[in-house]
């Protein structure tokens, strides 16, 4: 039975459990690269996680033994210890998940700081265009973001590709305030390609399309049907209606609250993934003109011959560099 005859001891033990559980979660966040459980943002320097975790564990034990005078008198019963440990673990989990949500890099924040470029609004599309300095003609890239995010979120990648000598057009999924449905969604990439082909600084023979997430499926589908597209890059495309990652694996990519939002979006996305059926169009894309970047933990379900597959780099700057170099070779 839970009596807690010494409330002060019970509170001290609860604090020990909460802080030491936070420490263990930080070490595991560093070991397993779980962004959603890390208080330092989760990417890069994982030794921060190990150091913070060890400090929390050692500090909490040292504090408990230093300030708890009633250690060697009858204190908490076994069932009370178990209940307090469970409460401490839950408390630690709430603190960590909330703290990690605040610490996790927010894509919109990065986009706000990035150079969004020149706004393009036509009846068929809405987006942002980046044009390199000089006379050209330049190779062109049509960028499709993850479904649910804005073309402006790709500002940093687009600006980096512009600096490498590409005209880029980042297109938005939302046209006229509504997210397009199948088959209307199939018109998005062709509209972007047409817009780029009509720009005087674009080399019409060197047109590429790049898609992120479900945007990758859209890019693959467009590359399989439009002969004007010479190269395609898909970054973590969905390809199947099964989510690439689920459960704890989702916390590798973002915070707990972001995972909740992804899950909500996934239901709508999975219908569109099946309708787009991008894998059926892979074979129609000419060999050596398709690159798929995928997280190493979840390789694409059915890699085909002629498709180049590389691991997804950790930062958006590295992603832009890989895409830029590959497109310089293949466009």
């Amino acid at each position, binding site marked *: 039975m839970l009596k807690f005859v010494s409330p002060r001891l019970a509170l001290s033990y609860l604090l020990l459990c909460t802080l030491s*559980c936070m420490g*263990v979660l930080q070490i595991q966040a560093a070991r*397993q690269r*779980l962004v959603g459980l890390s208080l330092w943002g989760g990417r890069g320097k994982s030794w921060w996680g190990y150091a913070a975790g060890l400090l929390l564990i050692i500090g909490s*034990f040292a504090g408990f033994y230093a300030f708890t005078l009633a*250690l*060697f008198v009858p204190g908490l019963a076994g069932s009370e210890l178990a209940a307090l440990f469970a409460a401490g673990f839950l408390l630690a989990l709430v603190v960590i998940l909330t703290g990690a949500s605040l610490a996790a890099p927010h894509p919109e924040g990065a986009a706000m700081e990035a150079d969004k470029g020149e706004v393009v609004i036509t009846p068929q599309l809405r987006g942002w265009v980046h044009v390199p300095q000089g006379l050209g003609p330049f190779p062109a890239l049509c960028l499709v973001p993850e479904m649910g995010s804005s073309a402006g979120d790709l500002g940093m990648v687009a600006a980096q590709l512009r600096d490498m000598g590409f005209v880029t057009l980042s297109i938005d999924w939302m046209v006229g305030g509504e997210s397009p449905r199948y088959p209307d969604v199939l018109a998005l990439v062709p509209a972007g390609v047409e817009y780029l082909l009509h720009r005087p600084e674009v080399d019409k023979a060197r047109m590429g399309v790049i898609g992120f997430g479900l945007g990758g499926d859209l890019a693959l589908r467009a590359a399989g049907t439009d002969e004007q597209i010479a190269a395609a890059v898909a970054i973590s495309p969905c390809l199947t209606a099964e989510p690439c990652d689920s*459960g*704890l694996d989702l916390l590798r990519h973002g915070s707990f609250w972001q*995972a909740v939002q992804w899950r909500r979006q996934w239901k709508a996305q999975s219908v569109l993934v099946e309708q787009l059926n991008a894998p059926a169009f892979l074979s129609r894309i000419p060999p050596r003109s398709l690159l798929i970047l995928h997280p190493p933990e979840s390789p694409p379900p059915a890699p085909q011959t002629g498709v180049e597959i590389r691991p997804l780099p950790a930062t958006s700057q590295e992603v832009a560099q890989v895409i830029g170099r590959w497109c310089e070779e293949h466009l």
Partner: protein
Amino acid sequence: MDWDWALFQLINGWAGRWPLLDGAMRFLANDYGLTTAMSLGLVALWFEGRERAQRERNQRAVLMAILSLLAANLLLKWCNLIYFRPRPFYAHPVHLLFYYPTDSSLPSNTAAVGFALAVSVWLWNRWAGLGFLLTALLFGWARIFCGVHYPGDVLAGALLGGGVAYLAGRWQRLLDPLLGWVIWLARRIYLA
């Protein structure tokens, strides 16, 4: 039990000689240190593993450890109801580095808990199980050193806890739906 008392004297005889060793053993034998460390080990094990299959194996180990712990505690309660063995300090002059527990000396609760966790984890993850096993051994040793248990109490606790965990492991197929359901539920909230 002469052998029990002789072995007790051999281990407890080291107590009271070096304050540093006494301090270390009191640190290990108290109710909070190693029990919390083992619980933290279970938390770490739950999140261990890059691959989903590997992680699920560890999570099953954690759930089986918790179930074994519950079963071992029930059995301990029952043992304490039917049998009482006085603590060593009631019958003999000993070096006591601890408070005076009033419950039965046999079986040792801490050994039962420690070995229930250790054997459960061992059945699923050898390296983690070894860590738990060493911790449980250290816990039992420290309790004898501090004068609150006979070696026989620790041995009985280890057999009880370890036996319950082993049997639970053998009958794990019966518990599979429950384990699968808990892991599925944890996956729904991104924690498995």
